[in-house]
């Protein structure tokens, strides 16, 4: 036993190390979930087995050391590792079974859609308020009065009232929030608030007020202009 197994083993270990330690550090990447790592390792293993069984000779050369290892025939100093494997395998099966059957202490998973689709009547609306410095300034004033307690004076979602809310108030300076949305989307979200969200937006958790009961539409459009200007972002357009 030896050479014919050493390469596949090293290949799988290298693949594991790559997925576990290298991929998360690539630019724009994130740690892979264990289920995905498991899937990749299984694909790698399958590929190796297919490659090694293309011919009778390579198949025998591949499986012979495995059979010898399992039966203990002519493995010399490998006996200790064999016993270790024979003990470890049932224990791992037991562990895996426990993990999949034991009662979980984790609360139910929540999959919230951050930007759910707006109702049709809000799609494609354009801001009727002209984009003048005066209107932008007025919008910033309304923002300071009505929005900044949660969304922050710096448009970063870190207002003094924000800390207890889950989900947290949106950070407008983050390029993945209002910069990805059209002004009509913001008009809908501000007007109808958290309770206007569809079910995938978890309307029961959002603290966003339903501003239509307190602010005229014109003020909301001005607030939108003030938000984009203050956060140094531009609305998404289709042009």
């Amino acid at each position, binding site marked *: 036993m030896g050479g014919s197994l050493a390469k596949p083993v090293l290949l799988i270990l290298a693949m594991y190390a790559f997925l576990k330690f290298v991929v998360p550090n690539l630019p724009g990447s994130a740690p892979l979930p264990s289920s995905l790592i498991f899937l990749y390792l299984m694909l790698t293993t399958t590929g190796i087995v297919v490659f090694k069984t293309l011919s009778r000779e390579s198949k025998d050369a591949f499986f012979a050391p495995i059979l010898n290892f399992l039966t203990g025939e002519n493995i010399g100093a490998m006996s200790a590792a064999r016993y270790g494997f024979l003990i470890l395998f049932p224990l791992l099966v037991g562990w895996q079974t*426990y993990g999949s059957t034991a009662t979980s202490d984790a609360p139910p998973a929540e999959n919230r859609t951050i930007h759910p689709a707006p109702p049709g009547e809000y799609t494609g609306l354009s801001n009727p308020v002209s984009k003048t410095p005066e209107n932008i300034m007025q919008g910033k004033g309304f923002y300071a009065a009505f929005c900044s307690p949660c969304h922050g004076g710096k448009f970063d979602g870190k207002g003094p009232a924000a800390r207890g809310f889950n989900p947290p108030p949106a950070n407008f300076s983050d390029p993945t929030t209002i910069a990805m949305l059209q002004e009509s989307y913001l008009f809908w979200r501000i007007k109808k608030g958290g309770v206007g969200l569809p079910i995938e937006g978890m309307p029961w958790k959002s603290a966003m007020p339903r501003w239509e009961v307190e602010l005229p539409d014109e003020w909301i459009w001005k607030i939108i202009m003030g938000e984009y200007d203050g956060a140094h972002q531009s609305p998404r357009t289709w042009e």
Partner: protein
Amino acid sequence: MKPANQIRQWVSGVGAVAVTALILSGAAPGLAQESESVSVSAPMVKGTLPVDDPNAAIWSTAKPAKFPMSPQVHWPNRILETTVKDLSVRALHDGTQVAVLLEYADPTEDPDDAAAIEFMVGDKKAHFAHGQPMAQVEGGPVNIWYWKNKDKKGVDMNAMGFGTLKIQTHQDVKATGAFSNGTWKVVFTRPLATEHTAEDTQLIPGGFINIAFAVWDGRKDGAGDLVEKGSQKAVSSWWYFRAEAPPDYSGYYYAAFAAALALGFQFVLIRKLKKGQAA
């Protein structure tokens, strides 16, 4: 055997064991990750629940969950700053009753100091702000357990939006508070299950249910008016509550059976392989 061959065998053997472990452990659940409080867990205790004693030693057996609080800004009349910034929550149950202990910092004891716990009722989701009506989702009611210092009692209420708060005709909730060194400790108790399933949240051991909190500092301003009152209060988002179920050892039994099965499989496989090699 040559030393080089021996080393190669060791690399292959140990590597094979490691790969097996990697692959199998990849399918196993990940290690528990540390996270901020998202849930209050009420362990089951034997003996008497500390229903009227916020300072009972047994509370230390319950793990505290800490939740941040925000001013209530969702609906007018809103407030932009509140006294209470964080809330610590512990809970216990005895299979019949549940006791929930709220603990928070408040510089002064005032007659109008008050606290409340809110639950969803039934299967329908409810908005965390008193079950405010939602435009695209049919919401359900919320069940609110309320305590005020000067009243010295718990009040069982329901709401489906601000302005709809209604005291129940049947009162199942008890509450008592103790103030010491700038800290309030308030205990709410209620039977886990009640007959009034349409109004009262039903706490089934083992099941998760949404929970939220509210606190009012009963201090007054220079004009003698309450600063925090009604909808002007500190609130939390929805979090989770679970009364722990009695210990369940079935996972260990299944694991032992699976390990025994794997051991038997190994035994049969190796025996068959050995027979094949001998032939």
